[in-house]
């Protein structure tokens, strides 16, 4: 009886991939789309650093960050693991209030980052997670942008903790996709956003004149009903033993000021106010 081998023999093309001398990549004529991506990212946001464990799948963007962007705002920070890169972006926001960018490979890298992305989601920390996806240029018409909020394949574990996924196909829509992702991330309650990069698009030359408008209009924060606020304030001032339970409200400096103001409003002579967190 013929026994099946414990491990499958590698196929010829797999052996060639591992052993053959890689071919020299063709030199690009003109500017690559990744230069435009760097320009669009830096001009429309307040991102200081890009945290990443380098991967070949976003080599074009990496090169443009260094050569075109002169490695300043955003500056590339090399990390040894995707989880630590997300954690660094998380901590930077907690200290400065500025959302940061992290780059990772589409499958393995994103899986490595999953736990840290969950932490950022639980802590309501905005960050833009750029992952490389397989080139879709040949499948989608040029200029098409695809937005999906669903989950259902191998990257669902990470996506469930994210606000949205925006896959820009075509350089002309990348800036629009980036601004949309940035707004998602920075609209309270904050959260991490996944932005898919087309792998082939990065290395392709810019084929048309693309203009970038500077800046983004800030989103208005959600606001409670004014009548409900007045009623709550009346109850708070009239209470004898008020307690303020502060949970996610005080995650920012502004939130702490609001909480202190509420306490001052509730506290009166001989009437201390407590709060619990």
């Amino acid at each position: 009886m013929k026994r099946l081998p414990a491990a499958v023999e590698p196929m010829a093309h797999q052996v060639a991939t591992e052993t053959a001398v890689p071919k020299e990549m063709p030199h690009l004529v003109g500017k690559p789309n990744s230069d435009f991506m760097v320009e669009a990212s830096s001009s429309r946001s307040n991102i200081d650093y890009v945290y990443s464990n380098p991967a070949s799948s976003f080599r074009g963007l990496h090169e443009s960050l260094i050569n075109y962007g002169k490695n300043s705002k955003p500056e590339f920070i090399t990390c040894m693991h995707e989880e630590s890169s997300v954690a660094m972006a998380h901590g930077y926001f907690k200290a400065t209030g500025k959302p940061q960018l992290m780059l990772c490979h589409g499958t393995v890298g994103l899986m490595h980052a999953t736990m840290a992305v969950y932490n950022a989601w639980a802590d309501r920390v905005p960050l833009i997670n750029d992952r490389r996806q397989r080139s879709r240029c040949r499948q989608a018409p040029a200029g098409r942008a695809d937005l999906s909020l669903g989950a259902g394949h191998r990257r669902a574990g990470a996506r469930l903790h994210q606000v949205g996924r925006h896959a820009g196909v075509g350089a002309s829509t990348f800036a629009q996709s980036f601004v949309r992702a940035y707004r998602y991330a920075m609209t309270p309650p904050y959260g991490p956003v996944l932005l898919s990069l087309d792998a082939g698009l990065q290395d392709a030359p810019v084929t048309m004149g693309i203009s970038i408008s500077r800046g983004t209009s800030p989103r208005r924060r959600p606001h409670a009903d004014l009548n409900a606020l007045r009623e709550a304030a009346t109850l708070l001032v009239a209470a004898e033993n008020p307690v303020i339970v502060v949970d996610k409200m005080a995650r920012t400096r502004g939130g702490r000021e609001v909480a202190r103001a509420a306490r001052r409003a509730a506290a009166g002579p001989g009437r201390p106010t407590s709060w619990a967190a």
Partner: protein
Amino acid sequence: MNMPNTHYLNQTASAQNLIRNADVIMGLECRDFLEHGQPVDRQR
């Protein structure tokens, strides 16, 4: 919450007692309002 647990206003440890005696409770962005009134079993 980003608040030092040594701050005099941080009364998390006595939250259950405070809430029991409160006549008005204001919650600011609470994930689970009721969890603040639950006793914490520190032996677990």
